[in-house]
């Protein structure tokens, strides 16, 4: 399954930067950063359970927001990217 994860974290809050780092780290462990607060994660269902729990544990429901978009294979194929920082396709050939 592919999940698109977006988040907003209130960094003006004293604990904000810490939560931001935690959330970004959890996303990065499971997927690919496509924009500053947007990740695309190709996951096995069991990994999604782990990631979701990690994110919900890290964010503050009072001032942050998390959005998960579940993409079908077709949706993922319909995605376009323009401009800088084209994300890595972790399922495609990785030749560096």
């Amino acid at each position, binding site marked *: 399954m592919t999940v698109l994860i977006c988040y907003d974290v209130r960094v003006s809050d004293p604990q904000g930067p810490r939560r931001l780092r935690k959330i970004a*780290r959890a996303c*990065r*462990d*499971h*997927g*690919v*950063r496509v924009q500053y607060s947007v990740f695309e994660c*190709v*996951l*096995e269902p069991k*990994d999604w359970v782990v990631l979701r729990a990690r994110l919900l544990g890290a964010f503050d429901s009072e001032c942050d927001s998390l959005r998960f978009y579940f993409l079908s294979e077709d949706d993922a194929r319909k995605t376009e990217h323009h401009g800088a920082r084209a994300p*890595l396709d*972790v*399922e*495609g*050939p*990785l*030749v*560096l």
Partner: protein
Amino acid sequence: MTTALNTLFITAEGTRLNKEGECVVVTVQDQKKAEVPLRHLRSVVCLTRAWLTPELMESCLEAGIHVSFFGMTGRFLARVEGVPGGNVLLRRQQYRAADDIARSVAISRALVVGKLGNARQFVLHARRDAAPERQEALSETARRLSEHLRALTRVEDLEQVRGLEGIAARDYFESFPALLKKSAQGFEFDGRNRRPPRNPLNAMLSFGYALLAQDCAGALAGVGLDPAVGFLHEDRPGRLSLALDLMEEFRAPVVDRLVFSLVNRGQLKPGDFRTESAGAVLLKDDARKTFLVAYQEAKQVGVRHAFLGQETTWGMAPHLQSLLLARHLRGELDGYPPFAMR
């Protein structure tokens, strides 16, 4: 399992790999090139001298990711893998079967049936698009391979299986010039040679087989079999005999097909190769990249597994065949069912 099958190939000089979080970070000449979550990887293949941190190595071994190293000429050097998977009981069954002549013959014969059958299918597929003057040669090869397949049912000992396999391989390689389109000039084929390969086609075949052997070894280790103890290939120190056995079924449909499509479509040209003073022909750096991308894409191509009755990919096929071989060795399947393409 399906999300964790990708291979990370390192081809750039001066690459450093380190671990950040649960990701591999690839840095080339102090420039960050990519960040790949470990959970997407099945293996890391270093085709040039690369530098891995001990932390990353530890995580790879714990996550069951194999790290293999090739020399600058594409020669396989080493593979690092963690604690063997599966269990010792399965490996004992494997060793017993390898010592048992009758069982070795049966498994070897099945492997060769798979090899010749798939080679024949590959030749027949190629014939469909071939110019009329090439079609005849390809039909002849297919006919000879059918004959060898029939002969296989009658052979009783290992030497005969190996002998027949050798004859069939020679007949098959003889058809290679007919697999080339007229437009593919500079890719003459005058027989298979290796150590070193002496022309571009042989260079690509050797490189492709080396990659496939590593994939097969990883697949076997993944189900807990010992890649070094084979049936068709005799034990020899340092040789992954069972990986070479398993690979037989996939040589033609994966590597040979890839090589001929790269050449016939003009994706690789004679200028993409260089000759060393000793006569060895090697792929230039860019050509090697093209080849690797095409190899990874070829593994994504779907194929139907006739025995299991399910759709899969060529990349998954060695894993499925390893499972079936393990089941046979455990006594759950009467014979080893070779992978038969249509």
